[in-house]
């Protein structure tokens, strides 16, 4: 045991007391901070201007003036403020809100009511126009008033040129929506402002009433907490797995491995490396978890966290670490260099990507068939089950215990396979092994 401990201590010290570790440790929260604070400023193209011409064919004769009016109003800041108010009142879709991010400088090209639509479509693809031709709009005859014998109202047909920015289409649709509603209220002699006022019910903010008191409900926490726990688990496992893979490949390529094997058995070496890197990733996870808990306490949100989740995090971490970490170390032992290791890692990396790809549907419906299935399939069951445990609808206890049982069995199987590959691979140099060779090693060792 003391030899295993010596190996573990060396791995821990050689990794933790390096600049690389500190940088690696800081890079994840740093990316988070960048995404949260600077990201929206970087990605949000607020200066984007939707500029160009839209042609309108209006058989009703009442929509066109409203289009003209909306376009001119859209250029006024007062009108934009009003639109925002109406959007908040639920009077506009998300698309309109998105469109508000882009300033509109549309120029209306009025076409006769009886214009040939096919002929007008050619206008969209005219070469080298003075201003971009953004859209051709053909208002339906029943857009404002229903036709005889029907109670339905129509809308309009929208034709656009190829490769048109989505934001342009959103802006055009916003303009047409406003114009048609204005036309409809005018025809019926209704007061649009009053209607908007009547329909305006501001969104309220709920108050969460708990055993420990009341607090403002934090919207989205039921999504953020499961994602944070799953992210922490993936980060911890990958942190350790990547470290074990890299150091094993390095020890092999440095040819220090045989010196080590003269002092310890392959199993002692593997055990020491597992222990050392488990310590490293537990340190990293503890730091992140600590930061998270401090943040929750600072914002008086600690009470929203079920402390049992930390216990589950540890249980599922150990399962995932021994399953994935041991397989990554086996891959490291089989490869001669990192490039080969990356090729062998591909199936494992694909498996590791699954929780990321499935987290959104799983967090929205934690008891769906997909979520239940994922929480029983090693090596990703730990991620799936932890996500469900942290969600708003935790799974029944029997599913948790079954997932732990399957996970432990999977971890033992992975350790068994990894030990066999490690024992043979660690002294194999030359041609990189393929999957078939790895299977042969498992059988032979």
């Amino acid at each position, binding site marked *: 045991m003391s*030899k295993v401990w*010596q*190996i573990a201590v*060396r791995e821990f010290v*050689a990794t933790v007391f*390096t600049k690389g570790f500190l940088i690696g440790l800081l890079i994840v929260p740093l990316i988070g901070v960048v995404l949260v604070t600077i990201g929206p400023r970087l990605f949000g193209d607020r200066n984007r201007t939707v500029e160009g011409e839209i042609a309108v064919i209006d058989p009703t004769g009442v929509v066109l003036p409203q289009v003209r009016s909306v376009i001119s109003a859209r250029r006024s800041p007062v009108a934009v403020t009003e639109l925002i108010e109406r959007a908040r009142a639920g009077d506009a879709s998300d698309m309109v809100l998105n469109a508000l991010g882009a300033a509109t400088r549309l120029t209306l090209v009025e076409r006769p009511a009886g214009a040939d639509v096919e002929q007008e479509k050619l206008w969209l693809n005219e070469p080298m126009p003075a201003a971009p031709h953004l859209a051709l709009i053909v208002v339906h005859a029943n857009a404002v008033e229903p036709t005889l014998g029907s109670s339905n109202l129509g809308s309009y047909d929208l034709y656009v040129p190829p490769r048109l920015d989505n934001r342009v289409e959103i802006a055009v649709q916003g303009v047409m929506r406003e114009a048609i509603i204005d036309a409809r209220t005018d025809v019926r002699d209704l007061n649009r402002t009053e209607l908007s006022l009547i329909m305006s019910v501001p969104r309220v903010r709920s108050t969460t009433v708990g055993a420990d008191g009341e607090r403002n409900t934090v919207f989205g926490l039921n999504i953020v907490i499961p994602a944070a726990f799953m992210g922490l688990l993936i980060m911890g496992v990958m942190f350790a797995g990547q470290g074990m893979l890299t150091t094993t490949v*390095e*020890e092999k390529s*440095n*040819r*220090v491995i*045989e*010196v*080590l*094997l*003269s*002092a*310890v*058995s392959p199993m002692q070496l593997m055990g020491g490396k597992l222990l050392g890197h488990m310590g490293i990733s537990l340190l990293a996870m503890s730091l992140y978890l600590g930061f998270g808990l401090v943040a929750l306490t600072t914002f008086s949100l600690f009470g929203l966290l079920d402390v049992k989740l930390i216990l589950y995090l540890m249980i599922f971490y150990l399962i995932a670490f021994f399953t994935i970490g041991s397989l990554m170390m086996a891959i490291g032992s089989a490869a001669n260099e990192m490039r080969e290791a990356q090729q062998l890692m591909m199936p494992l990396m694909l498996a590791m990507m699954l929780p990321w790809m499935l987290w959104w549907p799983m967090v929205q419906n934690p008891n769906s068939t997909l979520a239940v299935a994922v929480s029983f399939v090693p090596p990703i069951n730990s991620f799936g089950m932890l996500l469900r445990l942290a969600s708003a609808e935790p799974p029944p206890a029997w599913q948790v215990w079954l997932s732990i049982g399957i996970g432990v069995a999977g971890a033992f199987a992975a350790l068994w396979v990894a030990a066999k590959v490690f024992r043979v691979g660690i*002294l194999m*140099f030359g041609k990189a092994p393929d999957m078939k060779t790895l299977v042969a090693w498992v059988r032979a060792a």
Partner: protein
Amino acid sequence: MSNSAIELSAVTKTFAGLTAVDKLDLQIPRGALYGFIGPNGAGKTTTIRMIMSILLPDAGNLRVLGLPSALEAKDRIGYLPEERGLYRKMKVAPYLMFIAKLKGVSERGLKERVYAAIERIGLKGVENKRCEELSKGMSQKIQILAAIIHEPALLILDEPFSGLDPVSTRLLKDLILAEHRRGATVLFSTHVMPQAEEICDHVVMIHRGHKVLDDPVRTILRPHDSRALTFEPLDGQIDLGALHALPEVERCIAVNGHYEIGLRDGVSASAAMRSVLGVVPAARIELKRRSLEDVFVSIAGPDRGSAGGANGKAVAA
């Protein structure tokens, strides 16, 4: 307690259908200094790895320091592998301390021991240098130090002289002899025959997985060739024509500053010596002795393509 440091009995190892070591028997007594020679691919490293329990034999029995496996005696074995390296980012003294601790050396006094050992090999001042900062020769010395830092009872060195300059070679030779004097059993493999001849008590040669020589060095080198003389002229210059004209002489060739004179069939060596001395004054004239290299080439040379068919001395002339 067994008197053998290493005992191999019918040990066999096969890789993908190729027999690297075939029914090898070997006994190395405690305190002996053995050379392990053989051409490339003969099975030396595989044998050494099996002795070290890094590889497990497919068949046969193996005992190391009286125990059934080197795994049980690793702390008493020093090993320098053929393919060796260091942790590049680790500093020299911590590296040696790490290896020593793995070998069961107590932490107490370890630092002093490591510093003294580094000074002993003439590298004082490198203790806090990273291993990647060392020259190749310095690295080799540190690797050798790592093999003996725990004062092993059995020292196994796989090609320890490869890549060393003459000064380092001399240093290593002294280290090996010092370990042997301390009482350690030493087994080292080498391609450098003069060194094996100079250092070893006993030589084992392996060829194509079979043992083809297992004798004390003095026994191997004892036979003289009565049909050849080694001749060193007194003034360094000789008249080859006069030598060739002698009826006893079949040929005369220069070899590394001396001459080898081949004698005709039926000629008495003593009569030939007298004739040669009558023509050219000599600093030295003697019957040609076999070198270990001669033995090696005679067994593993290209004209002995099928050598090594038996596990014994049949091929070792």
